[in-house]
Structure formats: C-alpha cells, structure tokens
C-alpha cells in the first residue's frame, strides 16, 4: 500500500568501494530527491533501488540418486526483489534426477518471468 506522505529511505550504494550512505526522499514510490550520493551513478542506483530493485536469485534443489543430496542453482538474470521468496517456494517443490551438468536448465521460464533457473554445479549419479 502506498503511504500518503513523504518518506526517507536509506540506500547503501554498491557501485564502488566508497559505499555512500544515501538518503532518498520518496512520495508514492516516486523519487523526489537523493542526498549524500557521491556521484551520478549513485543517484541512478538509488532510483533503481526504489523503483524496481533486483537481486541475484540462488538456492538449492533436492537431488535424487546423486552423489550429493543438494544441487545449487541460480537465476540466469537478476530477479525482482519482491519475488525472491516466491521463487524459493517454487523450487522447494522440485526434485531433480542425477546426473546433472553445470549450466543445465532446472526450471525453464520460472513463474512466467522469462528467467530460467540453472544448475551451478555438476552432480554425478550415485
């Protein structure tokens, strides 16, 4: 729900080692301004963080008949931050069969996002 008042949000910039602690003023999800950004990249990053923050998704999937019981996986692209847990729930239902090759697709087009979930390691058959 959108708040009907101005809000101040702190964003730590991760674009360079300076790690500027920026304050972003928002009103109804619109960025009004940023404070303490050391450069324009920081301002862009802060706006992206407010409008549509994305994160790398990675997790594990159960393996049947493998030498090890868990397969590590990742998304092919960063995913909307708000969907991280939904993706985790979705892949928690899965069991994959060994052998598995690193880079192979584990879930195609997860939750109709156009993003695939791929294996980040190879697992041999037990």
């Amino acid at each position, binding site marked *: 729900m959108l708040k009907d008042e101005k809000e101040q949000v*702190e964003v*730590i*910039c*991760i674009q360079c*080692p*300076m*790690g500027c*602690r920026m304050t972003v003023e928002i009103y109804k999800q619109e960025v009004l301004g940023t404070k303490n950004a050391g450069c324009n990249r920081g301002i862009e990053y802060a706006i992206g963080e407010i409008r549509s923050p994305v*994160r*790398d998704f*990675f*997790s*594990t999937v*159960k393996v049947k008949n493998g030498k*090890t*019981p*868990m397969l*590590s996986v*990742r998304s092919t692209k960063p995913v909307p*931050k708000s969907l*991280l*847990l939904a993706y*985790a729930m979705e892949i928690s239902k899965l069991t994959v069969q060994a052998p598995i090759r*690193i880079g192979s697709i584990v879930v195609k087009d997860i939750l109709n996002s156009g993003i695939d979930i791929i294996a*980040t*390691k*190879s697992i041999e058959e037990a």
Partner: protein
Amino acid sequence: MSEQNLDVAVIGGGAAGTAAAIAAKTNGADSVLIVERNEELGGILPQCIHTGFGLHYLKENLTGPEYIDRFVKRIPELGIEHKLGTMVLDLTSRKEILTINRNEGVQRLRASSVVLAMGCRERSRGALSIPGTRPAGVFTAGTAQRLMDIEGYVPGKKIVILGSGDIGLIMARRFAMEGAKVKGVIEVMPYPGGLDRNLQILKDFDIPLYLRHAATFVHGKNRVEGVTMCKLDENGQPTGEEEIIDCDTLILSVGLIPENELSNRAGINLDPRTGGPIVDENMETSVEGIFACGNVVHVHDLVDHVTIAGEKAGASAAKNAGGELQRPVNKIQLIPGKNVRYVVPQIISGARPVEIYARMREPAYDAKITIGEHISIRRRVVKPAETTIIDLNEDRLKKLEGSSQVIVDMTSQEAVTC
C-alpha cells in the same frame, strides 16, 4: 611405505591450491600433485552458492561452485594429479610430505617445491568463551552453510548471528530465504564487518544490526533457547544494559584462523599479525622451496585475490623446481605501522614491481598511506573489510632504494561513521 618424487606438491585443493597447481604446470613443472583432505576439489567454494565471485579476476558475476569449476575442470585436462580424502600428517623443511588415505595407507612424497594452500578454519565458541549452557544449536557459519547447501538441512528456525562479517551476513540471507526468522546480527565493533554489498542483505530482509553489542550468555538445556546481548560503551566495555533474544540457533561468524600446523612442523616463520607464513614477493616462505598462498597466508575478502596469489605461488614453485627462481637479492621488509594491521608480502626485493595487500584497522575517508619516508598515496576510502591494494611500480620502488625496512602507515582526515 610407497614413495613418490615430484616437481611440485600442492597441499590443499581449494581456490589457492587449484590456481597454484595450474600455474605450476603451465610454467613448466612436469609432475604436479594436489593433496586434498576433502572428498572433492574446490575447498569452501562448492558450498558458497551465492553470487559475487569472479567480478575482478574473470569479469563475470558467478556463484562459488561456478567459479571453482573453471579451475577444477582444468586439473585433469592439464594432466595434474590429485589425491582426495588424503590427509597430510607431516611436512619437513626438506620438503618431504607424509600423507595418509584409505587406499594407499601412509605415503611419502618428495617434492622440489611445495605450495602450502591449506586455507583457514573458523573461530569457534570455545575460542570466544561465551558463558552459558552447552545446548545444541550453536554452529559456526561455515558449518551451517555446509549443512544447508551441501547436506540439505536447515539447522534452525529462529536465528541469531554473532558477527557482521561477510559470512555471517551471507548466512543471514540464506536462513531468511529458507523461511527461518533471523532475529538479529550482533557486532562487537562500532561499524559492520562485511562488504557494503552484503550489508544490503540486512535491509532486504529487515534484519536488525546491533553494533557495539556482545553476546554474553547462551541459554537453553537441550537446545538453544535464547542469547543474552549486552550493549557496550565506547571503550568496548559492557554497560550492563542487557536483552535476551529468543532463538533456537546461534550462528558464529567471528573470524577465520589460517591453518598453519604443517607450516609450524616445517619450521616456517609465521607473522603473528596475519597468523600465516611470512612470504616474499615470490610467495616463498622462510624455508627455501616452500611457497604459500591464499587464506593460509592471510584471510582474503575476495576469492579473486586468492586465485591471483595461487598463480604467483605456483609459477614460483615451477621456477624453483627448474632452478630458475629469482630470489630477492636486497630484501626490503614492509612493517605495518599506524592503523595498518598487516601487509603481505612482508618482504620485497625492490627490483620488480609488485602489488602489496594491506589490511587497515579502522575505516577512514580521505586516507593517506605512506610507505617509508618518500612514498605517499591517497585513497578516497579505506575499510578493514576490503583489502587495500597498493601498486609498487618502478617509480615508487626507486624511492625505496637502499632501504632494508620501511613502515607502512595510514592516516586520515575523516573517520567513517555508519
């Protein structure tokens, strides 16, 4: 007892060891062997399933298993031998290695060069002496990570994390992603210990960070039931202001210790500041022909730098085996001074450009780093969580001519506040 002679023996098959073995082979060593205690190569990386690896060295954003796969797959391709499930029992200054495993029993290896790449281990509860009961549910972060990402067990539901270093923060995210409630991260220092990109995790998952706090008591009979946390004053002393956090699991992310039992057995000189061998710019230790790289030398913040150190040690090991290693003629000792915890390598020749890695004590903006009396370098920011890399190029080395010892100091105009 069977025996084997080698050009280069590498102890440890993680990021440092695999990079060293590859570099040894590609620099002309004929017989190269990796001895690894675990049942697979890769060290800690197969369990580090998060991204952020390889940004510097490979210019790609990879997960730990993907990063190490790039190196592990080259081991058989290059004809490098390896022994898994094999423990090194002893190492001598004459470069004899005693190994043991299930199939071969005890074996003696003799190598022209040895590369130490044993990595580090985690500081445990015993090393911290946190008072309280001794219930189940206290894990080091790495153990919890292995349980979750390799074995497939989530070791708790209500989690308190002690230590705000990168591993603690990464485990905070893993627990949150597996549906556990992370009740807080407790940090004794007045600033967080991890990289900025990992601090984002706390915001993403609404996890409180308690700076200048200590865990002072562990509660629970069979299983952890809570942790008492005490606020510290500006001198780091307990204020008496306490709070019990209800939890079933305490995760310790309180530091890593280079694993140097073998270095000690071989009589290698260690640096008390790093906990690892003193090395020169070839990554050679105080014992001729024994080299060291990776977290056994000092605890790195990025695996990319471990790989680079491994390559340097491996190349030096191959040259030593071929009788071509150029050792420093005039040794210049780099001594950490004001606000500098340590400097690696500790010894340089001054004859060749070299990158040195310095670990600062406190974060600071507008920092001035001085090396001896004539070199002064400015940095916009320095942080203990991120190694400060200084390029000692030919111009700078000229200013060190004739020195046998120089002090590395850091002073700043402005301290970082969080």
